[in-house]
């Protein structure tokens, strides 16, 4: 023990102030607990600082830039459009600042104490926080671990000023002329698409046979088409071997379908996945057991092998998504407050902010069949929707997967403009056990994209209005 170290007793300690941790803290405080949150870096976590928010800001700016370059078709001529990337980054920074200071304000409003420093367990109910040369100890009734994840570094690609993680790419000071992206998962695709929109020539190297391998093939087709139109080249079955830094760039070597190729670029970005931040937490001292791949094993309330300790977000199994972290945070906060909440992932949506967007919730057709359902599906194209046409964004379709016997909505997948907002209705449908008939009976306003949901439901029922069989 450090001399002068002081132990404070609290109801609940939350480690990590990302979307998992800060939401858990607020919910626990709402339920009457005295909460402290320990954060070693930035309140808001990956999501607000180097994840969801800054990446979507770049995507948004890039989208505007493209829109301006293509506004001729809207009857608008914009001349000499150019990007001041320094200002783009400044704007992005302002949004991040506004949101993170918003979270800090919420901590204050809920009487949550925010402590800066790195936390580690020293006992089954004590954490120590190191900040600089000082440290303090907190003895808790309950602890919620929400330490999130970090980008995976692969052999041969040590992070540098030219070998970037997503974090590095989001902080770029210039628009690269050429960029090699290793990993065509959602983070790789989103950032590739944004930078390509700004004019970067992007090469994606993906190890598996397709980009976005987690999604159905047909959903990816419109995204692939758009990437191609933006000048992005995609190499699948490509294994990155190594990188050599040159005077002002990189040279990446990869084995593409068995043949060795090199790709020269200004930068290489490696987005091959993330690993949970569970190594240096002293979990053994807390009696918290780790499962596979460094993930913490938890029950349906988020409880670990230590009854007093819960874990949420990217450090537990399942999709590494912000809203999943927040959801688990709420459940854990309720559980330690004596409310019998449990997680239910049936209605957990996933979104890719590609161009066009992809969004899904519930089961895909393949998953539903695998689970033994006899399914009935229905699809409806954006091109047959008046709103999509008037927006000038008619690529894509919406697909509903339902149980054949009674029309219960099992899931939905969307690729198209505003898919990220449209999926919410299906979240409600899956969550509350709606049938396709309910969706068809829901009056959708005209002309809105929401009508696509209704028409797809009508397709399942066999009587769509705006497409003929």
């Amino acid at each position, binding site marked *: 023990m450090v001399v002068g170290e002081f132990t404070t007793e609290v109801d609940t300690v939350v480690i990590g102030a990302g979307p998992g941790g800060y939401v858990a803290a607020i919910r626990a405080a709402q339920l009457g607990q005295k909460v402290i949150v320990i954060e070693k870096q930035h309140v808001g976590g990956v999501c607000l600082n180097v994840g969801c928010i800054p990446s979507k800001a770049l995507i948004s700016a890039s989208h505007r830039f493209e829109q301006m370059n293509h506004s001729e078709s809207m009857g608008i001529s914009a001349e000499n459009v150019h990007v001041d990337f320094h200002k783009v980054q400044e704007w992005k920074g302002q949004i991040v600042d506004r949101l993170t200071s918003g979270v800090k304000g919420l901590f204050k409003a809920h009487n949550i104490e925010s402590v800066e420093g790195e936390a580690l367990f020293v006992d089954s109910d004590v954490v120590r926080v190191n900040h600089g040369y000082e440290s303090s100890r907190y003895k808790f009734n309950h602890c919620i671990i929400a330490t999130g994840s970090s980008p995976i570094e692969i052999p041969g690609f040590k992070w540098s000023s030219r070998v970037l993680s997503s974090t590095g790419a989001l902080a770029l000071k210039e628009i690269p002329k050429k960029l090699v992206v290793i990993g065509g998962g959602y983070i790789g695709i989103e950032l590739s698409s944004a930078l390509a929109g700004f004019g970067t020539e992007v090469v994606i190297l993906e190890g598996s046979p397709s980009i976005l391998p987690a999604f159905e093939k047909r959903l990816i087709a419109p995204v692939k088409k758009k990437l191609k139109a933006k000048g992005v080249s995609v190499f699948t079955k490509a294994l990155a071997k190594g990188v050599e830094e040159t005077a002002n760039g990189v040279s990446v070597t990869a084995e593409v379908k068995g043949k060795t190729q090199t790709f020269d670029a200004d930068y290489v970005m490696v987005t091959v996945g993330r690993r949970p931040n569970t190594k240096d937490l002293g979990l053994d001292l807390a009696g918290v057991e780790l499962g596979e791949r460094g993930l913490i094993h938890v029950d349906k309330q988020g409880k670990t092998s230590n009854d007093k300790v819960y874990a949420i977000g990217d450090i537990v199994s399942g999709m590494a998504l912000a809203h999943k972290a927040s959801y688990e945070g709420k459940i854990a906060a309720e559980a330690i407050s004596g409310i019998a909440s449990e997680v239910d992932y049936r209605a957990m949506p996933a979104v890719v902010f590609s161009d066009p967007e992809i969004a899904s919730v519930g089961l895909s057709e393949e998953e539903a069949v695998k689970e033994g359902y006899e399914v009935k599906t229905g699809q409806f194209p954006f091109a047959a929707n008046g709103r999509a046409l008037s927006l000038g964004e008619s690529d894509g379709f919406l697909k509903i997967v339902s149980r054949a016997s009674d029309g219960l909505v099992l899931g939905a997948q969307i690729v198209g403009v505003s898919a990220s907002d449209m999926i919410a209705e299906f979240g409600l449908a899956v969550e509350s056990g709606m049938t396709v008939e309910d*969706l068809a009976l829901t009056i959708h306003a005209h002309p809105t994209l929401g009508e696509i949901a209704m028409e797809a439901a009508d397709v399942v029922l066999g009587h769509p209005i705006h497409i003929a069989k």
Partner: protein
Amino acid sequence: MVKNYDLVLLGGGTGGYVAAIRASQLGLKTAIVEKDSLGGTCLHKGCIPTKALLRSAEVFSEIKKSQDFGIEVAQVALRFNKIQERKQAIVNQLHHGIQQLMKKGKIDMINGFGRLLGPSIFSPIPGSISVEFADGRENEILTSKNVILATGSRPRSLNGLAVDGEHVLTSDEALQLQEVPASIVIVGGGVIGVEWASMLADFGSKVTILEYSDRIIPSEDRTLSLSLARSFKKRGIQMVTSAKLLPETLQKENQLSISAEVDGRTETFSAEKILVSVGRMPNTEDIGLANTSIETDHGYIKTNAFGQTKETHIYAIGDITGGLQLAHVASHEGIHAVEHIAGLPVEPLQPERVPRCIYTHPEIASIGLTEAQAKKDHLVKVGKVPFGAIGKALVYGDSEGFAKVIADKSTNDVLGIHLYGPHATDLIGEAAAAKLLDATPWELSEVIHPHPTLSEIIGEAALAADGRAIHL
């Protein structure tokens, strides 16, 4: 010539053509009588063309604000003829699509003006339809087991203020404008009036709205009216409420000028054009209603909950029945009428389940009761969350607005949802599904909204109604 059908639709607008498709799916031998173009007001003079123009206006104003994002542009200019061409191309594409659907459904299209006949040699009961053709050839007579009247509506004009199509316009003529007027007075600040105001202001017109009531969009929740007015004001749109127009004061010289009585004083407004958007009139005067026992109220046809008129084999749907004059109401009433004719179980349309969208900037979308309406019969709780608290709105670069969820304090039923802000019209679909389910705020808050999306605001406002907001 006499032709026989199971069902004849008088009018091929949104209500009529959708009903025809449903009828053909159910195996009915169906015909549509349409005097102009399939698709009606909505496709040719309403929803679709205005939304196409509004989209160009939106992109134009976004481009002008792009420095905020760090995107610079030397010069932006409108090519209004291109904007009109794009609008027309979209209308044509959809029009073509509907015609294909009619062919595939084997629905007969009769291009003429139809009127109901009374009992005649063709049929002992009223409801045969006589179709008059523009080229003067002999009328066709259609007899049918059932008829659905779907003749829609047209712009209402003001006594003493003649629409000349050049200076004084309705939305019909405004859609054909070949250039952006430098200034315009819009008479009537309802849905159509505010959409035009928003669009023309974005295109650079100097806009003045004269509204009779004490606020614009008076049928919507008060906070929506006030917020839109605030936003309009910032954009330089002048609004004069509680204004009683004096049509006889119209003068056409270089400019038009017209006066209104405001707070007991007379004020005069001048502009290049005047747009009259004071509501719509049902097209029921000349369709032979007198030959039947069908009843009307101020020209609107009276029906029961299934759309049946006093002549129970004749139905009426859409704008001619009054109520909410919206395309999706017309199409749903059309489907319901056909299903009722076919003997299928039908649940009558409930106005609280009908979403209402206004495509101004920012957009408005609402469903169910306003707060004032709700307070009449309920003890209410209200959750209101600004878009500024939603990360995606900031990222999108447009965070003006809010979501408001109104619920009954004791039963917890959601009574109304009001959205004002970016993509409001995309977000209302979930709200409509929630109304169908009679969901509670708690159920809405249990929906996992993906992050970062605008839809998070609905979950957050639902939490706020229960006093459990996370981000507030």
